[in-house]
């Protein structure tokens, strides 16, 4: 939900009352999940400039030069709320989400890392929920990685009472590619736009807004149902298309979903598009 302050700002900038679709889109774009509006100042304190950094913050994944024309891409994302209400699907789709950011830079995902936080599994009371979260988060990560054939090579874990009834699931992916094959993300005027991925269902609706609020309602329908097989096909198809030099620009659409496609594509690809929602493939 937009804050009062944001609503006033929007009203002033637009010069009129936004309609419900506009509110929906801006709500997603301005959510913490998409804009990092409150965590930006902390994230900015991390080192991001070096001789080895080819692509820094602002793109789907960071690109690091490792010599010999080889580069690695790195992307990290949290999937806390989804994992706290639907640990299996939430953690699995967290893995799926970071992998797409790696392929959208034109590199092949080769490894996964996880940083997990739970409350104690051994306490006297109230451990059944943390056990349930722990078991299913681990299973979600494992099943998804196994199916798409990308190993989870490491991570860290901590148990503390402050995570009671909750969990933190941070997933990182690493990709490997060639320096001269990195997708430049500059679309030409007559390029075609292809929207590829899962069909639209009743799952994963308003995920970005959900993930940005306090967890006061357990909205399971905000969590997507994982489909690692489809993602595996998407990885191979995208890599084949980039290797065949068919692609000028790629953008991963995370929890932002199709509402925001129409905003994100023009901004990052410098192309406008018209979407017919009636033509969306449904699950």
């Amino acid at each position, binding site marked *: 939900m937009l804050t009062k302050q944001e609503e006033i700002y929007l009203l002033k900038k637009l010069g009129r009352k936004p309609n419900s679709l506009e509110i929906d889109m801006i709500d997603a774009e301005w959510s913490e999940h998409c804009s990092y509006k409150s965590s930006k100042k902390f994230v900015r304190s991390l080192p991001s400039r070096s001789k080895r950094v080819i692509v820094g913050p602002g793109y789907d994944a960071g690109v690091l030069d490792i010599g010999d024309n080889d580069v690695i891409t790195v992307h990290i994302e949290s999937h806390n709320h989804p994992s706290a209400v639907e640990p299996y699907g939430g953690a699995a789709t967290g893995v799926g989400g970071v992998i797409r950011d790696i392929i959208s830079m034109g590199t092949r995902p080769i490894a996964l890392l996880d940083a997990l936080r739970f409350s104690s599994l051994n306490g006297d009371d109230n451990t059944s929920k943390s056990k349930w979260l722990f078991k299913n988060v681990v299973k979600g990560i494992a099943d998804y990685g*196994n*199916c*798409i*054939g990308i190993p989870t090579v490491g991570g860290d874990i901590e148990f503390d009472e402050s995570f009671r009834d909750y969990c933190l699931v941070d997933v990182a992916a690493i990709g490997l590619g060639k320096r001269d094959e990195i997708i430049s993300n500059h679309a030409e005027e007559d390029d075609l736009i292809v929207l590829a991925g899962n069909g639209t269902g009743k799952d994963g609706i308003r995920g970005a807004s959900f993930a940005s609020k306090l967890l006061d309602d357990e909205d399971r329908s905000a969590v997507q149902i994982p489909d*690692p*097989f*489809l993602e*595996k*096909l998407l990885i191979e198809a995208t890599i084949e298309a980039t290797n065949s030099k068919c692609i000028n620009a790629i953008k991963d659409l995370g929890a932002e979903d199709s509402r925001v496609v129409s905003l994100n594509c023009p901004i990052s690809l410098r192309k406008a598009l018209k979407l017919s929602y009636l033509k969306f493939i449904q699950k």
Partner: protein
Amino acid sequence: MGVGIVVFPGSNCDRDVNHVLNDVIGLNTRYVWHTQKSIDEFDALILPGGFSYGDRLRAGIIAAQSPIVEAIKKKAAEGLPILGICNGFQILVEAGLLPGALVRNDKLKFSCEWLKMEVLNVDTPFTNLFKLNDQIRIPIAHGEGRYIISDDKLQELYKNNQIVCKYKDLNPNGSIDMIAAVCNEERNVMGIMPHPERASEPILSPEHTKSNARLIFHSLKNFLSSYTKY
């Protein structure tokens, strides 16, 4: 010529097998897409592991209906060496090229670990460089790897010496008689549940132990070089 690596949607060990055959063993390879209807140009075929069609319905069952499987059946009858690893084993079983069935592990969990396997038949294109009862250190990674077969068919397997490898000391999935790899009566088609391609380079072996699993691929190379037909 060379070894064909059959790729289905969801195969995910194809590139590992390709790397090992080319860069470690020294065999030429080419990927073969599952829609291909004929495969005349190969000396051998490998069906790599992975999750063809996301293991939906049952591991290997959908891939076993692919156009290429008809061509594989023809080639199998002609005596072409064919190796199915993990999901490839499941596909060969579902296609009826190998006896028995692979069902969910007895603990109903995906299992991923290094273990030992014992070689019981050294007269196949994939085990001819081993000595009888040699032990192989090798990793497994599967959720549906419990090999089952009816009692009378099991006796036939023993009679025809079709049990190529058995797990040693520990049964990771509840397979009948600890069976890890079987071949057909003619011995040119073999299915193996563990992953030799993940144990073919020293850097991949845990605790700096040596794994001799790559002898499976060296055996294939040896077999191919000693038969003029292939």
